[in-house]
């Protein structure tokens, strides 16, 4: 639930409850005041009747005028009547209709006889007043609620706009690209503060990330020199006379390890470079020709494993770095060869904007989530474990879609351009 909506709901419900309650209190208060005024009038009338009766020792005439009616009835001896006020109806003779009324029933003694006196007064005016007040209150409630809703809807949403803008930028935040956060134009302190914190945080994160990257970059570069020294010393070592075959084997192992370390380093550097978008030599790459060239390059490797190659190409041009296209194809094809089985098969298809490389191999699907992770490889693999990660990065750079699935005993890697 959106904050504005939640706030709106709470706000409106509370206002409604308070207004209804205050309306009710108001209603009862006015009702009470008007009723006691009516009762007062009735009492004055009673006093007048009592005074007149005392003076003349007889009842005044029953009257019915000006919304007031006085009736008398004789009480049988022994009957007692409690003096009380009550709600009743008043028959308006002018309008010939019943109206709500208020009555006072009391007893009076005149000429040694007890009479009950009923003084009725129309409370129509009071009721009308109450209704009128009630309607005004209701009107105020409605107007107030509508105003609140409008304020909440428009003012709140415009008040919160900077927040949503910042949120949008946060969502789109990517460490690798250089887009800075843009400052929102707002006078609200909280949002200004939020903006400033977000910007400061993003700068700090970027800085840390940059440092980390340049650390990787520098570390990899720095490692190249000692590697070069090891390599050159090994090259010098094998020139010395009379090495035994055993020593030769050991040296070869060292060579292989150095070679692997070098490749690993180069791959890390390459990854950093792609991530930093430092490879910008885009050109028109004729992919089908490039693939045919690559496959020819790998010909001997495939022949060694007695692998059967099936290729179907359609012309396809891509606008990308040829260097990266080369690396991408190298990785896909060399993986298909390396993880194949003897007398296996490799199928390279390029059509309708999709390149797929399918190969036979272990009869078990790879973990498609993890296969693209850095340093993920099975224990038997001689590779650096970075090949697919690099391919993924290249695909991300050019918005290609890299997929893996296992189908019909074939591992299929496909790139949709």
């Amino acid at each position, binding site marked *: 639930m959106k904050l504005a909506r939640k706030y709106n709901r709470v706000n409106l419900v509370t206002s409604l409850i308070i207004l209804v309650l205050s309306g009710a209190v108001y209603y009862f208060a006015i009702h009470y005041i008007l009723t006691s005024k009516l009762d007062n009038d009735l009492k004055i009338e009673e006093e007048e009747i009592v005074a007149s009766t005392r003076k003349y020792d007889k009842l005044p005439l029953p009257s019915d005028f000006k919304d007031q009616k006085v009736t008398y009835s004789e009480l049988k001896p022994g009957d007692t009547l409690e003096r009380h006020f009550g709600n009743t109806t008043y028959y308006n003779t002018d309008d010939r209709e019943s109206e709500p009324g208020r009555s006072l029933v009391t007893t009076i003694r005149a000429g040694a006889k007890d009479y009950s006196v009923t003084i009725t007064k129309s409370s129509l005016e009071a009721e009308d007043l109450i209704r009128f007040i009630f309607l005004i209150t209701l009107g105020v409630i409605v107007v107030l609620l509508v105003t609140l809703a409008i304020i909440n809807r428009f003012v709140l949403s415009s008040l919160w706009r900077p927040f949503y803008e910042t949120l949008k930028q946060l969502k789109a935040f990517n460490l690798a690209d250089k887009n800075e956060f843009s400052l929102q134009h707002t006078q609200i302190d909280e949002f200004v503060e939020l903006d400033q914190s977000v910007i400061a945080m993003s700068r700090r994160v970027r800085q840390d990330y940059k440092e980390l990257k340049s650390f990787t970059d520098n570390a990899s*570069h720095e490692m190249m*020199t000692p590697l070069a020294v*090891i390599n050159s010393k090994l090259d010098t070592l094998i020139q010395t006379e009379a090495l035994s075959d055993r020593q030769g084997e050991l040296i*070869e192992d060292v060579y292989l390890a150095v070679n692997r370390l070098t490749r690993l380093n180069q791959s890390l550097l390459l990854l950093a470079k792609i991530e930093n978008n430092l490879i910008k030599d885009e050109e028109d790459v004729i992919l089908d020709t490039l693939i045919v060239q690559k496959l020819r390059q790998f010909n001997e490797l495939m022949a060694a494993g007695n692998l059967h190659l099936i290729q179907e190409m359609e012309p396809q041009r891509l606008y990308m770095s040829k260097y990266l296209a080369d690396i991408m194809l190298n990785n896909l094809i*060399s993986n298909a060869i390396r993880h194949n089985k003897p007398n296996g098969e490799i199928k390279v298809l390029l059509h309708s904007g999709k390149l797929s490389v399918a190969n036979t191999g272990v009869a078990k699907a790879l973990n498609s989530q993890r296969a693209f992770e850095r340093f993920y490889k099975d224990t038997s693999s001689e590779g650096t474990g970075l090949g697919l990660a690099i391919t993924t990065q290249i695909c991300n750079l050019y918005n290609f879609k890299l997929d893996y699935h296992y189908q019909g005993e074939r591992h299929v890697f496909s790139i949709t351009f």
Partner: protein
Amino acid sequence: MKILLIEDEEALRDSIITYFTEEGNICETADDYASALTKINLYNYDCIVLDLTLPDGDGMEILRNLKNLHKNDGVLIISARHSLDDKLSGLNLGADDYLVKPFHLSELKARVMAIVRRKSFDGNNFIVFHEISIDGMAMKTMVNQQTVNLTKKEYDLLIYFIANQNKVITKSALAEHLWGDEIDLSDHFDFIYTHIKNLRKKLVEAGCGDYIKSMYGVGYKFGA
């Protein structure tokens, strides 16, 4: 052959010098920008092996200086930076080749030899080793004036061997040279064996001495 090696890493410098001077080449060294600049101003070299990252300056500046001096020395850049930009700007500034660290000494030697050959014979590059003579322009190999038909890989192998004669060359160096470093052949060295076997057979059949020897299981040595 006169070579200037500009490299600040002492251990690497020593290895390269040992590898190059054994054959009576003159190999001078400079370990920083300043001394390198002095040397290129004073002398001419067949090939300058240049490290781009020097403690007191940028190797690229040396290239610019060479260009300004109108010198025709061959230049091979060796750098830890495997960057296309560096490679291109180096080559644009007149370098002849670019080799990324780490490299095999045999590869360095082969590249230097190729540069020197190109420079010194004005493109007419002939390689002669005993009864073998190679016309680098026509890519033709002859043994005792008889043409031997070599495949591209065998031809490359032979040139590489002659450039590194009497040195033990590792299988991985050969593999990298023949297939490029993009393809990781570390578990497939038997290919090299096949190519070497074929080359050896063709040469011997043409009446050439058997110059290729397998060494300690690590590699091969070419020499009379």
